[in-house]
């Protein structure tokens, strides 16, 4: 079970390589719109994050995820933490 803060930290760390230097990763950052990630890149990042928490995220849930916060909330829920 992971808290929202822990999940947020994991998401920020995973997104680090994709963020322009000097730019902060706010919770409202849009993975596609702001960071310019392709759907394939998002899936690759999610796969890495899944291993960090030893969980599997259903693809069915991903269409509802746009922002850093939404991804962290989904992770929290999937890891057995509080539901988003």
């Amino acid at each position: 079970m992971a808290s929202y803060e822990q999940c947020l930290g994991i998401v920020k760390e995973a997104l680090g390589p994709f963020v322009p230097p000097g730019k902060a990763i706010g919770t409202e950052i849009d993975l596609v719109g702001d960071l310019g990630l392709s759907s394939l890149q998002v899936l690759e990042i999610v796969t890495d994050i899944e291993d960090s928490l030893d969980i599997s995220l259903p693809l069915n849930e991903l269409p509802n995820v746009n922002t850093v916060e939404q991804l962290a909330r989904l992770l929290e829920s999937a890891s057995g933490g509080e539901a988003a």
Partner: protein
Amino acid sequence: MSLLGKFQAFADLRDELLSHGTLPFGVVTEKILSPTEGIVHGRKTILAGTNNYLGLTFDADAVKAGQRALAEEGTGTTGSRMANGTYAGHLALEKEIAEFFNRRHALVFTTGFSATMGMVCALAGRDDVLLIDADCHASIYDGCRLSGAEILRFRHNDVADLEKRLRRLGERAANTLVVTEGLYSMLGDQAPLEAMVEVKDRYGACLLLDEAHSMGVFGNRGRGLAEALDVEDEVDFVVGTFSKSLGSIGGFCVSNRPELELSRFAARSYIFTASPTPSIVASTRVTLQRVAEGQELRAQLWENSRRLYAGLTEAGFRLGPEPGPVVAVFVDCQETAIAWWHDLLENGVYVNLVMPPATPSTSCLLRCSISAAHTPEQVGHIVDRFAALLAEPQATGAAVTKAG
């Protein structure tokens, strides 16, 4: 965005592609000459992107059988398998495809896409889990979406990742359908089936294997990668297509599980579409026999495949991970890939241009598929035309990584 506004992105892409000349997607073969040659842009062209692995599209007996069925049974069935669209030929083909695979049951669909999509969503429902290889075909992804099941991916051909995800499922692993392909159509790499079946058996999951590109290509009898690796008994369901090695069109699923027969009532793409035309069924029955007896064709196919793979490697191209009938050339720069594709076509070689997101990476692919019917001279010409690309002035950007 308006209802139709989303099409602007396609219009932009099409305009960009047209700025290079011909649109690479939907090239017109003005006249087909043989399994390996056609007239494109008024020029005789070697076809090296057709999936016609055994070169059976002009098999004289298959053509005759098709002509006879066309004359005797008409141009179409005009109905679904579930209504008026099941003729004696459909049942005969199902019996023969079941015998070919040594399975008790077979279902014939109108296309390979509808077979795969239909079986995935017929087998898995709301309370089940679909665990699919990340590089699976669009028909598998679409079947997943329609199924209502929970959809999970494992890393491409990564047995440890598959095992990890089955472990995470706990008791739900027993309600899981694992989906993988034999030969992957884009990079031409093969699934590690022996390790995969061991893992899925240990967790009590079912396996559906798509042998679309591997049927006719692997195995003494051409049954696919599962036959070649001697794991057929551990594969629960096999789906495939008639539109590649068998040279016609249509799809199938075979299994020893009695539930496959009941899938006739559950697979929507079987129920709600017209059945294959009698001429297609008749031709397919002939080419199925050719595949079963096709040891020499397979030997020729593999010889041609290895020759092409070795030639392109020697020329300095970065290719898919292993030799086989699909030889994918990585081109990192999109502009170069498009320019090279045109250059090849203008010099009488047609290959498939594949661009992300249809590729499994951020690179473009110049995808070749080789046939048993290609002559050594044709394979040599394909290699020569590719090698000439590296000798010519290149477009800007990183074009290709030299093979290490």
